């Protein structure tokens, strides 16, 4: 399900709107994921506080959104853009790629909450496809 020209346009335009709130969105999505999908906590046993208010969670959520924003800017070559991050997740962090879909769901949920009028079904499908392609790019180096 590769990204059409229309998908890329939609994603870029929506990300421009979301950018000012990117850090909050990332922090909130990560916080929700840790609560609603407790199995994801297994990757963060080195943090002292896994609650949604935790500074560690908020900071890391902002980091993730920053990386996603970079990917939006390089949307024409996601695999290339994500190569280093893919190596990190594959060889060092060893995150089961099934979790990328779980985080994507929580990102979509938070985007819908923050932008209920802008996150129409048409925007939703393009963002969903983008996050799926992002996940593929992130999993590229796994095996």
């Amino acid at each position, binding site marked *: 399900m590769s990204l059409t020209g229309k998908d890329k346009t939609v994603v870029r335009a929506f990300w421009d709107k979301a950018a000012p709130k990117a850090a909050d969105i990332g922090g909130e999505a990560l916080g929700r994921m840790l609560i609603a999908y407790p199995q994801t906590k297994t990757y963060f046993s080195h943090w002292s506080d896994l609650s949604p208010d935790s500074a560690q969670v908020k900071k890391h959520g902002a980091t993730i959104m920053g990386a996603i924003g970079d990917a939006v800017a390089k949307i024409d070559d996601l695999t290339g853009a994500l190569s280093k991050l893919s190596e990190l997740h594959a060889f060092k962090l060893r995150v089961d790629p099934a979790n990328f879909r779980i985080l994507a769901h929580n990102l979509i*949920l938070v985007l819908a*909450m923050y932008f209920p009028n802008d996150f129409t079904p048409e925007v*939703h499908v393009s963002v969903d496809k983008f996050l799926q392609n992002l996940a593929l790019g992130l999993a590229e180096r796994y095996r």
Partner: protein
Amino acid sequence: MVKWTEEERQTIRSVWEKVDIDETGPQLIARALIVYPWTERYFGTFGDIFTTSAILTNAKVATHGKVVLRALDRAVKNLDNITETYAALSRLHYEKLKVDPDNFRLLADCITITIACKLKAALNPQVQATWQKFLSAVVEAMNNQYK
């Protein structure tokens, strides 16, 4: 069988009472058809569901969303009995409608996202977790008769 704490029961009910079936129902199937277009295969009798504008104005799509949410209401009212409550629906979707059960998971996600648009911060992380636990039980019950 799923076990519910008193707090979870209250959370599920308090989310559900904020949902207006007439408002949310029409949005639900429309979102599923737009975001997951392969679901069109199940709605052959609904007429034109092949473009976004057609989907958003299709009366049968709107009505069916309400049908689904009314069924969800039965699950909310029978939290200790979801499997039995949904046995006939599960059989129907398996034997007659031949729906791939993975689509129940996708529809459940659409329900949560549609509700999130309405409830916003009221669907806080803990409430989201409980609501999704409820929908997982519903999805499992819908899978139950697939054998």
